[in-house]
């Protein structure tokens, strides 16, 4: 993974959704509304699980496209096997985040953490989505398990929700 582009955001003080949205839109050239960006933000942990082993192979690339698809579907953008413009934007945004993981990870998790303090109900859903992606292969790998625990700790999600043992 490269660490170029937007610089290391862990050193940049981004604590609000609007600031992160603005910075991210500028860097990624993704055209997402703030509402759509919030969807991306809340599903960011799923991307981390898919890329748990440090790279996205051909199969995992399909998973990333799945994330983009169901995020777009939640806006009624399903087009029966055809990519909708929103799905394309989400896909572009996710691959950007994957490529620039080191630059954006801290900021995304920090803002998501703060957001979840306001809406803790979302934690359970985030946990479920992470598990579904980790569980989509034959078993949950050690890498995936580590990422889930790491994200859970950062977001203050009860690890018991994951039943990882």
């Amino acid at each position: 993974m490269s660490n170029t582009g937007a610089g290391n955001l862990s050193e940049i003080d981004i604590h609000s959704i609007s600031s992160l949205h603005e910075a991210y839109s500028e860097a990624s050239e993704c055209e997402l509304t703030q509402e759509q960006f919030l969807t991306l933000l809340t599903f960011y942990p799923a991307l981390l699980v898919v890329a748990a082993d440090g790279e996205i192979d051909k199969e995992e690339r399909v998973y990333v496209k799945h994330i983009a698809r169901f995020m777009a579907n939640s806006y009624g953008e399903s087009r029966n096997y055809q990519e909708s413009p929103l799905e394309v934007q989400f896909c572009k945004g996710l691959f950007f985040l994957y490529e620039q993981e080191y630059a954006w990870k801290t900021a995304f998790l920090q803002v998501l953490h703060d957001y979840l303090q306001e809406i803790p109900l979302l934690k359970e859903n985030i946990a479920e989505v992470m598990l579904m992606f980790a569980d989509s292969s034959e078993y949950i790998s050690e890498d995936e398990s580590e990422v889930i625990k790491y994200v859970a700790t950062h977001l203050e999600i009860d690890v018991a929700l994951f039943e990882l043992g």
Partner: protein
Amino acid sequence: MADRHKFSMAKKLTESKDENKEITTVQKKKTVRGKPLRQNKPMKKQRSKKLVLDRLTAIAIKMREIRKKAAQPQATSTTN
């Protein structure tokens, strides 16, 4: 007496045959019932891609609704 004995033996044999028949029938039934069980091997963890996408879409929609509800009473929230 010998005839009665013969009759009795014959009856027993018939009954015994009938019993065997019944047993055979029951066994056959078991076998017939057993077949589909044997065919139903423990399912491999294999989810339909569509089902997973549907579930994930449902979660995404649910999360949007939760977000909307949370945003309503505090429209002027400083979060954004």
